């Protein structure tokens, strides 16, 4: 299906991680090419470990990025974080207007 004029396809990447990782993750996301993003505090308890009791619940980052950046983020997280920390990450396709805002 073709994309209407003025729209473009991008990927919405969501990363949910332990609160203590917030600063470190932010640096890595920027390094992997993420520009703008939103961050929020969320509650939850993956796998019953109660790591949320450690300084500040969970942080959720959401960013709209190109396919290439989305791939870098997910692969980077898998390599640097998945084995050692409670991190969940996924993406799905979205349509945006003003695609120049999401390089």
């Amino acid at each position, binding site marked *: 299906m073709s994309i209407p004029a003025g729209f473009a396809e991008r990927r919405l990447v969501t990363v949910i991680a332990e609160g203590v990782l917030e600063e470190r993750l932010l640096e890595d996301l920027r390094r992997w090419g993420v520009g703008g993003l939103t961050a929020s505090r969320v509650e939850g308890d993956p796998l019953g470990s*109660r790591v949320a009791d450690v*300084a500040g619940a969970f942080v959720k980052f959401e960013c709209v990025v190109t396919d290439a950046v989305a791939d870098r983020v997910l692969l980077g997280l898998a390599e640097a974080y998945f084995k050692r920390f409670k991190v969940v990450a996924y993406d799905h396709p979205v349509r945006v207007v003003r695609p120049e805002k999401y390089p």
Partner: protein
Amino acid sequence: MEAFELLRINLFSPMVLAFALGVVATGVRSDLRFPDALYAALSIYLLLAIGLKGGTALAATPPSQLWLPALVTMGVGSIMPVWCFALLRRLGRLTVPDAAAMAAHYGSVSVVTFIACQAFLDRAGVPYEGFMVTLVALLEVPAILVALLIARAGPGAWGSSAREVLAGRSILLLVGGLVIGAAAGPAGMARVEPFFVTPFEGVLTLFLLEMGLVTARRFGELRRIGPFLLGFGVVMPFLHGTLGILLGPVIGLSVGGSVVLAVLFASASYIAATAAVRLALPEANPSIYLTSSLAITFPFNLVVGIPLYARIAQAVWGPT
């Protein structure tokens, strides 16, 4: 003062009763929840308030009275994680990361337990040195760094953990409060007394209600951590507390000051050490160190330990 009277003063204080209410609330699955922002605000208030009070006292303390307690505190804070680690490895058979994580927690300090101790001594009419909060700031960091060193967490982890702890909320507000209190002096403090002094115990009561909620959530993990750690969470604080009592007057502290020192040595961190350990030693199991420090040691010290150390100090060194 008799042991029973000390215990009664502690157990029937609004703070300890609020803690108990929090425990009960979790036990009956109440929907009582503190918003994260409220918890953060209360802890900022408490940390800054005790820093300010301590700073005013520090400004009036001659360095000759301070240097020895400060040096000894840092020294003990650096050695405690070493013997904790050795015990946990040899007798507890913990892995290196788990033993190091525990050592970081038990060598560091719980600011809330310190605050509760001061409130108890005020109610019991036991005087203590006003500069003790300086020792809190000195004790927070060394154990964490030593424990990471023992675990060979790597120079990068060591450096970022040092920055993390030193720039963390606890140290920043404690040290910042000390500096502000010292610079502003009694005249400056008098202006903020209606906000930072008068409501202090009320805020502490609210904070301990939240601590009761959080602590009780970990009681379910007690079954899993085993009898050794259950015992460690009580015996080590008692031994460390006794060390503080014995050292206190030797290094120039009053009997009340030695009780505070005992509580500093006996307490286990569950904020600064936990965040630093989670980043630097992610292989360590949070269920072990968080359950020990939060579900065993913190309530033990709060309910039983503080009056116990006070009684022992009076028995050893005489009444205040």
